[in-house]
């Protein structure tokens, strides 16, 4: 079956520091990977979409300078939250698309900033 693993599951970082999270698709080749942030106030916010053979596209309010993403192959993606502050708290989810429609999510990385 198609699985998406995210690591770490949870992390705590000091305000102003950075943390990196990883996403791996297992059992399928992800034609595109999207990173989301889920918070109690704003449901799912799309951060960026990475598609094979295309540049990574960031949504409004999210930048490469703040959330750099690496997508070296069809199975692996990583994202770093640079200079994290309180407003960056939330559950970061990686969604990987298999084929033309289905998108599978990992369990997420919960970021706490102190």
């Amino acid at each position, binding site marked *: 079956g198609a699985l*998406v693993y*995210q690591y770490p599951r949870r992390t705590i970082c000091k305000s102003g520091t950075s943390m990196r999270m990883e996403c791996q698709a297992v059992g399928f080749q*992800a*034609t*595109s*990977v*999207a990173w989301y942030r889920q918070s109690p106030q704003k*449901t*799912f916010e*799309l951060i960026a*979409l990475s*598609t094979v053979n295309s540049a990574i596209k960031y949504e409004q309010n999210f930048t490469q300078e703040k959330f750099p993403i690496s997508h070296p192959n069809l199975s692996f993606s990583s994202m770093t939250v640079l200079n994290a502050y309180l407003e960056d708290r939330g*559950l970061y*989810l990686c*969604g*990987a*698309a298999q*084929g*033309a*429609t*289905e*998108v*599978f*999510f*990992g*369990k*997420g990385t*919960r970021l706490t900033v102190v």
Partner: protein
Amino acid sequence: QQQVRQSPQSLTVWEGETAILNCSYENSAFDYFPWYQQFPGEGPALLISILSVSNKKEDGRFTIFFNKREKKLSLHIADSQPGDSATYFCAAVNQGGSAKLIFGEGTKLTVSS
């Protein structure tokens, strides 16, 4: 602007009843609608989905009814079980192999025994 809306925000049903969760959307270009089930502390799990060329999709106790003209769809959970208690998200996407989903704000379902 919220492109995908869900109602109610929360819903409580008794065990064995049918839970009905509603979803509507604005963009006529959306043509694929997955529903996700999320338990606390977990990521969303794909539950069932429908393409806009269909008006009904069944998978066990879960059924999607889709009305393209009215831009509405609903998820029916028959014979609800306490284990179905979770938050359900309706999402929409332009078909094309993209992981870019537009999510609704979710319906929190509680099944009481």
